């Protein structure tokens, strides 16, 4: 392990890397096939670099590379990402409830405590406020903790630590400290989990200056985002979804990292831009099948980066289609959709042929009863209707 983590070294304010580790030696995959860094990865098998590696439904990204890849479930992809980063950098550690011996309540950290020990995969008591504070303190010295909220909703208890310390310390210290934490966990509406366990924290966290927020939706982008988040010098909140952990996909064997600020083009189209993220992506794609049968050609973009928005990709799409539909799981008031609507209106007003339509969840606590819960979130039928109305 490195002898010190920056306490005694007179590191420059923006010291990004420890002297022992070399700069990132991976291409960062961008959806427009433009890698950010082109240094070839030395530590793993040096296969062909997949540059056009977007997890589009029709296209198998791995087919572009020489190896066929391997199939994983989403939680396994997250674990692979975590494990690779822990292997690569001894400063990466995990904090959370039941992440160690239990293996994680969604098995994301299964086996890691056996491999890396109890200090590196730390089972914390049920004290979100303080273990997130601890992660921030550890990050100030140079460690790179990945903190799990067993359910994102529990992180409300740690709001102060996330907002003031995680988000703002880099600024209020004049750049002296970076806080390279990753805060991750499942959120969103599940299967009748009740109001308190079905929250969408992205609405509450989106105003915090200094953090980045990303939402994964496929095994491919889950692994890539996990790795990118761990390597980022900024605090990143990685939103996973309770219902997406068992999605299966074939992902490349080679190491890859996905850009934190880029949106993903899921389905190119001409008639309407549908912006979505996380679980709603699947509702949108289901609606897209119906729409295609009816003769529409929707362009579906998974925005992935919730803070900051990838206005470039979104903008290019709007300039093509001139109509926007946002489908989100946040509530109508103060959600990601609300901010995205404002951002698009501000930047691309001239390109819009119609007002932006935003489909969100209802402004209610998520009820327990299955029928009510179904109506709380946006269903594919509503998406089809909305597109039909928009494209009239």
């Amino acid at each position: 392990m490195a002898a010190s983590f920056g306490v005694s070294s007179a590191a420059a304010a923006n010291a990004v890397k420890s002297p022992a580790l070399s700069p990132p030696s991976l291409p960062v995959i961008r959806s427009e096939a433009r890698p950010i860094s082109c240094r070839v990865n030395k530590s793993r098998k040096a296969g062909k670099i997949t540059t056009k590696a977007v997890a589009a439904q029709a296209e198998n990204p791995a087919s572009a590379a020489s190896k066929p890849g391997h199939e994983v479930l989403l939680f396994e992809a997250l674990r692979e990402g975590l494990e690779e980063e822990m292997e690569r950098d001894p400063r990466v550690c995990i904090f959370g409830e039941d992440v160690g011996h239990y293996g994680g309540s969604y098995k994301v950290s299964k086996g890691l405590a056996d491999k890396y020990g109890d200090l590196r995969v730390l089972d914390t008591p049920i004290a979100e406020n303080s273990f997130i504070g601890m992660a921030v303190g550890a990050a100030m010295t140079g460690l790179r903790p990945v903190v799990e909220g067993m359910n994102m909703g529990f992180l409300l208890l740690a709001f102060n630590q996330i907002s003031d310390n995680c988000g703002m310390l880099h600024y209020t210290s004049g750049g002296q400290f970076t806080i390279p934490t990753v805060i991750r966990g499942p959120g969103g509406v599940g299967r009748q989990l009740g109001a308190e366990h079905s929250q969408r924290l992205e609405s509450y966290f989106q105003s915090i200056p200094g953090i980045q927020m990303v939402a994964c939706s496929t095994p491919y982008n889950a692994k890539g985002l996990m790795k990118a988040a761990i390597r980022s010098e900024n605090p990143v909140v990685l939103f996973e979804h309770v219902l997406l952990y068992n999605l299966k996909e074939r992902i490349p064997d080679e190491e890859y990292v996905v850009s934190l600020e880029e949106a993903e083009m899921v389905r190119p189209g001409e008639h309407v831009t549908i912006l979505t993220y996380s679980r709603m992506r699947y509702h949108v794609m289901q609606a897209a099948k119906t729409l295609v049968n009816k003769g529409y050609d929707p362009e579906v973009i998974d925005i992935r980066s919730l803070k900051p928005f990838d206005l470039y990709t979104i903008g290019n799409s709007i300039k093509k289609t001139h109509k926007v539909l946002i489908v989100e799981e946040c509530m109508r008031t103060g959600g990601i959709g609300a901010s995205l609507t404002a951002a698009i209106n501000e930047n691309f007003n001239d390109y819009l042929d119609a007002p932006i339509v935003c489909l969100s969840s209802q402004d209610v606590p998520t009820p327990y009863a299955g029928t009510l819960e179904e109506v709380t979130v946006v269903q594919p039928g509503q998406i089809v209707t909305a597109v039909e109305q928009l494209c009239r």
Partner: protein
Amino acid sequence: MAQLIRRAAALNKSLPAASFAARGLATASTSSITVETSLPFTGHNIDPPSRSVETSPQELLTFFRDMALMRRMEIAADSLYKAKLIRGFCHLYDGQEAVCVGMEAAINRKDCIITAYRDHCIFLGRGGTLLEAFAELMGRKDGCSKGKGGSMHFYKKEGGFYGGHGIVGAQVPLGCGLAFAQKYSKDESVTFAMYGDGAANQGQLFEALNMAALWDLPAILVCENNHYGMGTAEWRAAKSPAYYKRGDYVPGLKVDGMDALAVKQACKFAKEHALKNGPIILEMDTYRYHGHSMSDPGSTYRTRDEISGVRQERDPIERIRKLVLAHDLATEKELKDTEKEVRKEVDEAIAQAKESPMPDPSELFSNVYAKGLGTESFGADRKEVRTVLP
């Protein structure tokens, strides 16, 4: 440490060699003096250390100078605030200097200190300069946080000073995180997480204490008990104001926080304990002369007699002055000269800080994010690089 040695050297230079010889100090300035602390230590679940503290003339003179400097800085900050050069919140530390100075004497720069918002003097102790402090208070770009933090956000990474936090109690879990990192990297150093009697009632403190004890983290929780949580006296806020006992399974020590030597002894003891056995709580019985902050007169919830009583009987600088005079380490006049020097230093630093410009408008957006892997945030047209706020 280097700064203290430099200052001590400067002090020694200013005293003519003849006066040392005249007073028959054949021994060098590093000779040892043993002093008894004013009060014995009280322990909770632990045997307290001895009352006899080893010190040296150099150390005592350094204590005097450092505390005089800190006192002067805080008084000057008071005037600057009234002159509206310092705005917002300004929490002054005068009266509590012994805690900071005694702690520094017991530790090194690899050990970490984290505290709340009454952080100006601790910043100085960790190697911060007067210029950085005053410039930060006045919001200038030469401040330690480039003018963007303010009074409550002083940090010094190279000095192991982790701030500077505005939210009461939130720094204690951070302190445990620092201790965790020290344990992780096995570098034989400890963390002092400081908080006040008001913060002692925060839940996150007990959460952090539980975790520190569970994992044997080298964390020392220091409660600077100045007996008032802003306007509320400790007995009105805490069912049990014996803060050193509140750790229950974690041992505690009650220390006279106005006696720099007692603080030094306690911190040394605590460091040894923490490295071997995990967390320990130190309660420093101290007092602040000013109100909670500059917007609090400090007299509505306590009497002026109380304040002047403490100043007469327990003032930390006076205690060291008496010690120095009793052991013939310097004359009255020399000490007065030191105070004048210190005053001059502070005035010069203020003048220099006043010259420092305000931060550039572009600084509004710098340091929100750090550059790292792929973090380039673009505007809508990717022509200018800026962080995009949705």
